[in-house]
C-alpha cells in the first residue's frame, strides 16, 4: 500500500460506523417511499426485488475464489483475475440464462439464471485447476485453513514456502459454483422486476403494443441489471479488499457489511431505474 494511507489491514472486522447505518436506513426508507409514490404497490414490490437481487449478488461475490495478480503467478489460491471480471462473467452468463427463460415464468427464469451463473463458474474453476495442475504443475493447497472442510484433505504439506497457498481446493470450487449461482439468481431477479415495470409502462406511454416495445423494455432492463450487478460486485470487492479464497476464508465473515452497502446502493440505483419513464415527455 502507498504512503498515502489506504485500507487498514486489520485482523478483526471493523463494524460500520453509526452514521453509515443511519444513512443506510434513511436511504432505503426514502427509496421505498418514492417507489410507492411513483408506481404504487408494484413499485415497492419491484424495488424490494431489486434490493434482494443486489444483496444476493454482493453475497455471492464472497463465495467466489478471487485470486488476483498473485494467483496468476501461483502464489495465492483462487482464479487469477479481479472480482469485476469474474462477477461480470458469472453475472452476464446468468443474466443470459435468465433472460432466455423469462417467458416461462418467474421460478423457471430465476432457476435459469442461477444455473447459467453456476455453470460458468463451474467451467471456469475446473479449467483453472486443469491449467494449474497439468500446465503449471502445482497442487491445490489453501493457505488460510489446514484442512478442507468438505473432503478433509490436508494442505500444509503441499503448500510451497513463501506462498499463501496455490491452486483451487475443492472448497473453493464449491464456493465458486455457489457464488456464480447466487450472482446469476440476483442479476436475473433485478432484470425480471425491471422488465415487469417497463412492460407495463411503455405501451401506455408510447401508445404501442407490448410486442412493439419489447426490444426497448428488454434492452433497458438488461442494461440496468448489468449496471446494478457491477455496482454491487465492486462494493463487495471493496469489502474483501480484492482477494478471497472462498467460504472458508476468514474474510468471508465480513459479508454483513457488503449486504448493507449493496442493499442501499441497489435501492438508490433501483429507484432511478423504476422512475425512468416518469419524466418522459414532461420537459
Amino acid at each position: 500500500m502507498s504512503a498515502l494511507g489506504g485500507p487498514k489491514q486489520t485482523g478483526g472486522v471493523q463494524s460500520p460506523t453509526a452514521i453509515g447505518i443511519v444513512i443506510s436506513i434513511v436511504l432505503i426508507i426514502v427509496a421505498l417511499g418514492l417507489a410507492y409514490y411513483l408506481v404504487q404497490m408494484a413499485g415497492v414490490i419491484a424495488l424490494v426485488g431489486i434490493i434482494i437481487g443486489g444483496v444476493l449478488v454482493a453475497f455471492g461475490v464472497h463465495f467466489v475464489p478471487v485470486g488476483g495478480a498473485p494467483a496468476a503467478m501461483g502464489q495465492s489460491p483462487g482464479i487469477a483475475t479481479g472480482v469485476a471480471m469474474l462477477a461480470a462473467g458469472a453475472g452476464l452468463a446468468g443474466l443470459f440464462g435468465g433472460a432466455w427463460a423469462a417467458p416461462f415464468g418467474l421460478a423457471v427464469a430465476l432457476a435459469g439464471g442461477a444455473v447459467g451463473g453456476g455453470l460458468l463458474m463451474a467451467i471456469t474453476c475446473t479449467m483453472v485447476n486443469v491449467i494449474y495442475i497439468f500446465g503449471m504443475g502445482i497442487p491445490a493447497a489453501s493457505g488460510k485453513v489446514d484442512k478442507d472442510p468438505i473432503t478433509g484433505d490436508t494442505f500444509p504439506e503441499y503448500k510451497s514456502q513463501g506462498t499463501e497457498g496455490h491452486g483451487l481446493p475443492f472448497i473453493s470450487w464449491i464456493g465458486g459454483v455457489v457464488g456464480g449461482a447466487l450472482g446469476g439468481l440476483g442479476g436475473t431477479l433485478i432484470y425480471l422486476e425491471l422488465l415487469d415495470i417497463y412492460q407495463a409502462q411503455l405501451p401506455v406511454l408510447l401508445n404501442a403494443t407490448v410486442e412493439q416495445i419489447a426490444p426497448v423494455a428488454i434492452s433497458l432492463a438488461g442494461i440496468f441489471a448489468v449496471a446494478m450487478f457491477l455496482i454491487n460486485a465492486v462494493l463487495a470487492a471493496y469489502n474483501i479488499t480484492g482477494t478471497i479464497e472462498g467460504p472458508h476464508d476468514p474474510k468471508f465473515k465480513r459479508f454483513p457489511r457488503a449486504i448493507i452497502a449493496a442493499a442501499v446502493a441497489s435501492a438508490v440505483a433501483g429507484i432511478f431505474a423504476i422512475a425512468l419513464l416518469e419524466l418522459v415527455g414532461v420537459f
Partner: protein
Amino acid sequence: MSVKVEVGAGGIPHNQVLIYGLVGSLVLIYLTYLNTYFQTQYFAFFGGLAAVAALIWGTDTIKHLCSYGLGTGVPSAGMIALGSGVIAALFGATTGVLAPIVTVIIAAIIGAVAGLMANAVVRMDIPVMVISLIELAIVGAMTVLGLAAMACGTFEFLGMITGTVSILGFTIQTYETSVIGGSIIAVIFMLGAIAIQHSFNACLGPGEQQDRTLTLAAECGFLSMITVAIISFAFIGMYAALVALVVSIIGWFYTYRKYIALSKRDAYAWLDAQPIMEPKGGA
C-alpha cells in the same frame, strides 16, 4: 492484488483537470443539440468528443483513487463508474433539453451513495473515496450519454428508442432499430468501460507521467469513438456518420502518434526493431 501502485508527481493539478473535463464535456454534449436546432445530423460527433473529455478527466480521477491501493485492481473503479453512470445517463436522457445537467446531478447522487457505503459501511476509510466515486459516476454518465448521442444524433430519450427502417421504399417507424431497442447501449457501455479502465492500468508504475497517461486516455476515447461512428451509419445520415468517422480517425491518429512519442520520451532506451527478413532462397 496487493500490488503497489506508484503514481508520478507533477503535471496539471487534479482540480484543474476536473474543471476542464466537466465544463468541456457539458459544453461539447450541448453542441450536439445544434442537430435539433438546425434540423440536421452533422453535429453528432460532438457527443463523442464530450466522451473523450470526460474520459481524460476520469483517468486522472482513477489515478488519484487507485494511488491509495484499493486492492481490487484498477478495472473495478472503471466498472463502478460506468455502472452508476449508465443509470444516471438514461434517467437524465428522459428530461429533454436538460438531459446533460440532470445526468450530472443524478450521477453525483448515485456516486455519493456508493462512496458513502464504501467508506462508512464497508470501511475502506479512504479520504478521497466519496469525491472520487462522485466524479467517476459523472464521468461514466457523460461517456455513455455522449457516445449514445453520437450514435443517434440526439441525447433525448425518445430519439434513442425510436428508429426508422425502410422496406420497399416505405419508411416506417420502429423501436427495434434504435440505440436502446437494438441494445447498442450495451456496446456503448463496454466501449466506455474499456476506455476508462485501460489507460491508468497500462501506464501505472514507476515513471508514470500524467501527460502520457492522459494522452492514452484520449486515444482510448477516440478508439471507442471510431466504433461508435461506424455504428452510427445505421442511425444517422450517411454523410453525418462519415464526418463523425473522419473526426474520430483523425483524433485517434493524432493521439496515437503523440502517445508513441511520449512513450519514447519516457523510455530508458528505444530500439526501432525491423521485421526479421527471410533469407532469399530459404534457409
